[in-house]
């Protein structure tokens, strides 16, 4: 009992560490506000830059203040808009106002500005009050005005209660929770299917080659596993897609979410096979080695002496005690397969978590990325615990 408590505590600690790392990295290295609002997010930085005569400057570096002329040809400068100064000591002329300020006299040619500009500098107008309001609203909604640890705790509280927050990109719809609910079952189905396929391929294959250990057939199958393992899954996926979906036309090339269940499972077969084949090769190698070791034990000799058939020896006597490392790697591999699924989903256009995380990464939609990373980590930890339980079930020795 004590052991399981420790184990669970460890798992929670691990998940916390993972979430802190991810959350921290995304907030420190990324700019959440920019991802939510786009260029408008800069509004707050501009706040102090609007000058009394209607010109807003956002300069890069220290530039001496002085007198500058209006650039001809540029009449207005929208809020937040930037213009590159090309002619030296000149500034864009504008006719409209920044809210609350008077119209700038169009006749004026000399304007004094605090700061100043040089060629190659961007001149940017100050923010519109509504933009400032947007920024403040967003900061409040996403807790961005709080310090990082507070934000983390707030996020964690929501997350544990099943609210993964709004998406950063677009309009924040659908909420991340809904997106995950839509995508997760597909990835889950894909992984389960892949693991079942891998097991179904690996066990008979291992039994067969272990019963013919070191004979030519066994050597050929060992070489085959080696070749399969050396083929990266994206390459394997393209090969399978080319052969079975394009040349032979046996399987559809893409996944269609609207189709009935059986059809969708059929569409998932090729992606699942792409994930399953290398996994099966790994499992086969392990299981074969363990089977060969088991087959040299005394109880096998005993069974053989009693006249048990070769088939029964393999299936009933040797298989179960040889399953330990297989089960272990089955669990550890689940993590690697999740990684593989990300890539494979993109080859076969399966809209699962894998494509979701890639899409989210490209637009830097952190809540989505964070949610998916946490789901993956949680699944990984869970699988490992389940494997420990399975261990105690199949091996009485571990129960002590």
């Amino acid at each position: 009992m004590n052991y399981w408590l420790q184990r669970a505590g460890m798992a929670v600690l691990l998940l916390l560490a993972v979430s802190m790392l991810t959350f921290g990295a995304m907030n420190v290295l990324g700019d959440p506000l920019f991802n939510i609002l786009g260029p408008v997010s800069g509004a707050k930085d501009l706040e102090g830059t609007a000058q009394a005569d209607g010109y807003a400057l956002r300069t890069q570096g220290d530039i001496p203040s002085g007198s500058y002329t209006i650039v001809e040809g540029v009449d207005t400068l929208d809020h937040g808009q930037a213009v590159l100064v090309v002619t030296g000591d000149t500034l864009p002329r504008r006719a409209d106002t920044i809210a609350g300020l008077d119209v700038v006299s169009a006749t004026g040619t000399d304007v004094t500005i605090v700061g100043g500009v040089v060629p190659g500098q961007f001149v940017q107008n100050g923010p519109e009050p509504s933009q400032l309001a947007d920024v403040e609203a967003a900061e409040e909604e996403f807790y961005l005005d709080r310090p990082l640890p507070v934000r983390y705790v707030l996020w964690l509280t929501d997350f544990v209660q099943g609210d993964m927050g709004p998406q950063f990109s677009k309009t924040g719809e659908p909420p991340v929770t809904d997106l995950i609910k839509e995508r997760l079952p597909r990835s889950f189905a894909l992984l389960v299917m892949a693991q079942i396929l891998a097991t179904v391929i690996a066990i008979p294959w291992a039994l067969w080659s272990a019963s013919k250990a070191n004979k030519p057939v066994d050597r050929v199958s060992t070489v085959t596993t080696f070749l399969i393992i050396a083929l990266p899954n994206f390459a394997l996926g393209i090969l399978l897609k080319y052969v079975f979906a394009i040349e032979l036309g046996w399987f559809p090339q893409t996944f269609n979410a609207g189709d009935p269940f059986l059809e969708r499972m059929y569409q998932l077969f090729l992606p699942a096979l792409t994930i399953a084949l290398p996994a099966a090769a790994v499992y086969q190698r392990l299981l074969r080695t363990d089977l060969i070791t088991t087959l040299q034990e005394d109880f096998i000799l005993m069974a053989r002496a009693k006249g048990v058939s070769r088939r029964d020896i393999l299936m009933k006597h040797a298989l179960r005690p040889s399953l330990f490392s297989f089960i272990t790697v089955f669990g550890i591999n689940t993590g690697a397969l999740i990684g593989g699924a990300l890539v494979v989903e993109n080859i076969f256009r399966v809209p699962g978590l894998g494509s979701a995380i890639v899409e989210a990464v490209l637009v830097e939609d952190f809540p989505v990325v964070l949610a998916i990373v946490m789901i993956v980590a949680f699944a990984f930890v869970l699988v490992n615990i389940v494997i420990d339980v399975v261990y105690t079930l199949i091996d009485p020795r571990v129960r002590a």
Partner: protein
Amino acid sequence: MSDLPESPALLAADVILEDAPSESMASRRTLGIGFWIAVGWIVLIVLAALLAPYLGLKDPDENYINRDLGRPPYPPSGEFWFGSDQDARDVFSRTIYGARVSLVVGFAAMGCGMLFGGTLGMLAGFLRGWFDRVISFVFLVLLSFPALVLAILITSLLDRNLRTVAGTLGFLSIAPVGRLARATTIQYSEREFVLAARTLGAKNGRLMIRELLPNVVIPMGALALLGVAVAIVAEGALAFLGLSVEQELSWGKLILLGSGTNILQDAPWVSMGPIFVLFLTVLALNFAGDRVREYFDVRENML
């Protein structure tokens, strides 16, 4: 082991990852012809990548439209060894140029992993105590979710150039390398020759560098070869997702460019060329790594 509760699953994994000894004793005494073929291929690919501009290859970005052949893409021929893509660019020379990024990332990532992971792992294994516990936990955290997810996460936050991609994959290889270094160090630091050196008054630094390091380096070397292969594949996967080096070509990007349904239908060679070379390279690295490990894997009961 540290005080952290470790699951039987993870403990067993340590044993399994070491892999079982090969059945044939004879094959272990020499590295075998296969090893040298594998090394030959690796050297060939590395040289080709290094010398790519001087080999008289076609320009990888130039369109070699040949009116006699009609509209590109051209199938493989004497002129285009691996065929050409739909813009009549030579797939063979693109593959060789792509090797540069793939190999640099592969070797740099592993070098980084060896340097930092090896040092941390050895220190943890040698010093033990709280330092070991902290480092082991960090390794566990890093290993506790799919490396590719981490890689996607990191590359998404940084500018994607050669240095950041190699650095990311290097960072990710610290934990696996460190774990092996730690385990090997623990195994050796309990041996008599270390005790003897300590009795003679050797300081910690000397013990680590003169006594332990030479023993830890050998299993690490085998791991390094496998690790380079893993890093190359990881870079390929990242490139395939559009998250690797943005400017230059790499094998993953070439495969991605040839993987669209239309191009795959019309000109499968555009992706098959790079796939073939990538496959052979990974195969050679895996095989060489396996052989090196078996070669040096002298167990007590065999002496």
